[in-house]
């Protein structure tokens, strides 16, 4: 044993071991609620599942068959689809403006700041906003699915914008310059070079925003409201998975609470599916 390279001291070895053990313990504790949530979801939720569960609407009857959650699944898909159709083009458009045109200008930085603020706004505020602006004023009737979609879109917009801005910033400037040096007008550089290069990242960011919107209750509570039957008309009330869960959990009947578990499991699987697709798309990305 040479004096130039002394062995690790006993004290340091002990400190190292204690620190490692403490971090591992904290990680395990943090995993406990996560595992329990999944455990109860599957245990209670699977029990509620059946073919009828997905193909019938809630009946609302106090006695007898409570029905399934078809209207909630259909409603969530319709409202989230409309919200995405609004928020994704707007969000990517804002991000394109910020990255390609606004850059570090004062206005662009103000926009960035507001986007950040909007990301932190609680979702119930968006619901309240739409309630006051569109529901109370009776624009095209009172509660309506499209109003719920707008509330969800407001929630998604900053998420889409932020993620799109990050991805667009990852597109190397060398590509923009290469295209500009060929005599390409800027708009063509954006649409033919920048957007295709960023596409996988844009899709991933959008899917995560969709997953987030699909699970929101508060924006829909007083905009799309609650209804039993399957509704395809956007100007009418529309059911949704989060609201179905919200309603059923408060009921005094076990059967209804169990339906809530079933609906919750369905919602989680829906979101999980979106997240998985988002990950797969991200793998195709050439940006790091």
């Amino acid at each position, binding site marked *: 044993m040479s004096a130039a390279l002394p062995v690790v001291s006993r004290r340091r070895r002990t400190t190292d071991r204690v620190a490692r053990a403490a971090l591992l313990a904290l990680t395990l504790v943090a995993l406990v609620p996560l595992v329990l949530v999944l455990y109860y979801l599957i245990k209670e939720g699977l029990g509620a599942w059946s073919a009828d569960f997905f193909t019938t609407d809630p009946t609302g009857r106090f006695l007898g068959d409570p029905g399934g959650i078809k209207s909630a699944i259909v409603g969530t898909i319709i409202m989230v689809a409309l919200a995405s159709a609004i928020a994704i083009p707007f969000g990517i458009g804002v991000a394109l403006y910020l990255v390609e045109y606004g850059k570090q200008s004062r206005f662009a930085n103000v926009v960035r700041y507001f986007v950040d603020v909007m990301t932190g706004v609680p979702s119930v505020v968006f619901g309240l906003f739409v309630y006051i602006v569109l529901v109370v004023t009776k624009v095209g009737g009172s509660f309506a699915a499209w109003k719920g979609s707008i509330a969800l879109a407001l929630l998604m917009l900053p998420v889409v914008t932020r993620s799109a801005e990050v991805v667009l910033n990852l597109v190397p400037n060398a590509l*923009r310059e*290469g*295209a500009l*040096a*060929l*005599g390409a007008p800027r708009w063509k*550089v954006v649409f033919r070079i920048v957007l295709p290069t960023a596409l996988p990242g844009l899709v991933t960011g959008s899917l995560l925003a969709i997953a987030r919107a699909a699970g929101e209750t508060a924006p829909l509570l007083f905009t799309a409201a609650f209804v039993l039957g399957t509704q395809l008309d956007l100007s009418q009330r529309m059911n949704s998975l989060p609201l179905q869960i919200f309603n059923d959990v408060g009921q005094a009947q076990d059967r209804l609470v169990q339906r809530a578990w079933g609906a919750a499991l369905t919602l989680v699987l829906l979101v999980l599916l979106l997240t998985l697709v988002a990950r797969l798309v991200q793998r195709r990305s*050439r940006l790091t």
Partner: protein
Amino acid sequence: MNPEDQTTPAGAETAGAGNGAAPRVGPSPGEVAAAAERPPPPAHPTGRAIALRDVDAYYGDAHAIKSATMDYAPNQVTAMIGPSGSGKSTLVRCINRMHEEIPGARVEGEILLDDVDVNAAGVDVVAVRRAIGMVFQKPNPFPTLSIYDNVAAGVRLSGMKGINMRERVEQSLRSAALWEEVKDRLGQPGIGLSGGQQQRLCIARTIAVEPEVILMDEPCSALDPIATLKIEELIHELKQRYTIVIVTHNMQQAARVADTTAFMLDGAIVEHAPTRKIFSTPDDARTEEYVTGKFG
């Protein structure tokens, strides 16, 4: 390092007979054949002259180019040499107005393509860049596009009409000495090529829009010696048809490819003369110190 000492991938591909043979200097038989097949350059595109008259450039408050005045002769290769930060790249970017992509950069003075000031009111920047192409330091093929589409990109992006695209792509790839290497995989992504091939792909992309001047901003600095040699051979051929301005850090490269060489220092053009003169009997003491390696 001497490029001929290495086993060249290109040599291995073309002949396969080079095993144990003495290191070969100059183009391989395959390359010679490719050169013979290459169609004669079309009559019409030819290089045009560029003239700088008292050009000053600024990055915000920093004075990057100080009243540069010089001429780039048509169908000649002009090298820009000088230490880092001397303004070589900045000056070259100003010529096709790429400096406009850098926030805070501005230019004063006249930059004339033949007799037209590229910065004059009403001159379309898109037209300027179509006439004055640019090859960058790092090869930058478009990652979402195939080899074919990369070459076609310039023509498509700049909205040129009435062009036989297949013909134009083949012609451009041949001019960039890349056709033989990629003709069987035009549909594959451009970023699958080696660094040197990528840079030739970028040159092909630039040629495809038929510019009159090609600016090269240290085109070989990211490449190995073999790939560098290929690009240099290519430059010799390209000057038949284009005026070429090449920024380089490598004085040997300037000596090998350039007809005339300009030495820059601190944003000013110190001296512009035939390359032989710059490297043997320069007029300015600073040029002599730089080319003899006393600084920089």
